[in-house]
């Protein structure tokens, strides 16, 4: 698997420091990260707000120069051959940057022109991509009339206009309703089936678990873990989690009583999480201690718990 021809993105010691007025040292958003993305895989970057996900994505998209480290994409150096790399990437930025002065189809056409594609090719491709993203009916509408999910799909259609080998998606489903998210995921699966390499950032666990073959967890500019979702869950958590909620007045007393009942305990603002190999057994132990939770729930450990274990924080705070 280390065959260099299958490694499409290779980052070594990658850093990004933003200069800030009046601050000579600058602000380190990405603090020396190493990772590799292989052909055909869906690779995730998981992290809370401010972890440095977007900064990483912008460096890979060759729109933001790295401050230090080496970054090779499709065999090219990101600094020296940015335009060559960008010609073969599809980019879905965190905030939709659709051209609001143009119609849906015009957005695809002009974007393709930036790649130097001919009008003839673009007419055919735009029709096909509007179909692919279920936007054919909206082809001649102003983009202002699109819903959030449609705008996102248009951004994805636009990112595919040059038939890219790698598609970068920065929080593709943030802010979308469940139905729009599922449609989008389904389209991403299709892309993956077609052999496109996907690199996406997210702070949604279910998204990471469903789509990503492999992922890195980022925190404060550093990679704190790397692996397949199931692997990470097995490595960093016990099998199950017992979630307890208490009446506000009793929280502290109840929490203290639970200490020692589980191998790991995490206190969140609204609930207490006990990691355990057997949730039901732990719940019985809790009851034996005289603890009376408002609600108790046993569930399988997830990436959310991995994140909690690694950073001590919840992803969505």
């Amino acid at each position, binding site marked *: 698997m280390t065959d260099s021809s299958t490694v499409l993105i290779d980052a070594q010691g990658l850093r990004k420091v933003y200069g800030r007025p009046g601050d000579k040292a600058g602000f380190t958003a990405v603090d020396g990260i190493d990772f590799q993305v292989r052909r055909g895989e869906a690779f995730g970057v998981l992290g809370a707000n401010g972890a440095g996900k977007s900064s990483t994505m912008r460096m890979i998209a060759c729109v*933001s120069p790295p401050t230090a480290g080496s970054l090779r994409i499709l065999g090219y150096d990101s600094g020296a051959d940015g335009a*060559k790399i960008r010609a073969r*990437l599809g980019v879905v930025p965190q905030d939709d940057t659709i051209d609001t*002065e143009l119609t849906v189809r015009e957005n695809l056409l*002009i974007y393709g*022109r930036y790649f*130097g594609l001919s009008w003839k090719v673009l007419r055919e491709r735009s029709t*096909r991509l509007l179909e692919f993203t279920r936007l054919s009916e909206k082809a001649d509408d102003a983009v202002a009339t699109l819903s959030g999910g449609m705008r996102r799909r248009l951004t994805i259609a636009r990112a595919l206009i040059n038939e890219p*080998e790698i598609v970068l998606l920065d929080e593709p489903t943030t802010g979308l309703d469940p139905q729009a998210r599922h449609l989008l995921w389904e389209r991403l699966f299709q892309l993956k089936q077609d*052999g496109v390499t996907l690199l996406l950032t997210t702070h949604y666990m279910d998204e990471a678990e469903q789509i990503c073959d492999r992922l890195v967890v980022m925190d404060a500019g550093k990679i704190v873990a790397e692996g397949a979702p199931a692997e990470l869950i097995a490595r960093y958590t016990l099998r199950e989690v017992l979630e307890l909620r208490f009446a506000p007045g009793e929280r502290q007393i109840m929490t203290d009583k639970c200490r020692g009942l589980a191998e790991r305990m995490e206190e969140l603002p609204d609930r207490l999480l006990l990691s355990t190999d057997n949730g039901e057994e732990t719940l019985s132990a809790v009851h034996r201690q005289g603890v009376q939770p408002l609600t108790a729930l046993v569930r399988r450990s997830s990436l959310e718990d991995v994140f909690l274990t690694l950073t001590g924080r919840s992803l969505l705070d």
Partner: protein
Amino acid sequence: MTAMPTGAPAGNPVRPGRAWTMVERNLMIYRHTWPVLLAEIFEPMLYLLAFGVGVGLLVGDVPGLGASVSYPQFVAPALLATAAMNGAMNETTFNMYGKLTTDKTYESILTTPMSVRSVALGEVFWALVRGAIVATVFLVVVSIFGLAELPGALLVIPSALLIGFAFAAMGLLTVTFLRSWQDFQLIQLVMLPMFLFATTFFPLSVYPRAVQVFVEVLPLYHSVELVRAAFLGTGGGYPAIAVIYLAVLGVVALAIAVRRLEDTLRP
């Protein structure tokens, strides 16, 4: 959808984006919003009607220009030069600031093979295309009213292009310094006095020498002189100075602006 290729893009080789594509984008937009361009053409004509004809009835010929020049003949070229300036400046300041900040248009364009330089040059190109359209229509109208001597006055078109280039580049440089929409009032603070003083409505000879020196360094003054020379078929060797002044101004401003934009757009 048919299978996406997993290897190198098949069929059509991908060429790097070129500056001209920015013009194509603007043409696409203007298919929806062409009335904006009409407004730009009518503005100088309204000025011509109000000042040229109105004031012209009061003052008769303008002194100090050799041949007898009526007031409308005196004002028309200045208005055209001003229209070329405003069209170009608006494009690279007002419109471009919106695209840089609110719309994030360039952010998405720069994820393609387009370079910052292509984008900047493209926007300047577009300002020139617009300027050429406005200047041509204006020239046709004033020729119908006998205010310009064709075919000599055709030199007005390349003059308007040069003026458009210089001011589009100046605008591009200016936009890299803007901090908020409020700063546009500062631009107005410079543009309006320049419009009033740059021999638009009065010949240079009416000012005291101190003011004349100040007027003579204004880029709009050189623009007006250039267009006036083409309109009236006068000028002798002078326009050469104006051409060099505007060309150097434009090239230097453009070079600095592209460097500064690179920092803004690729943080």
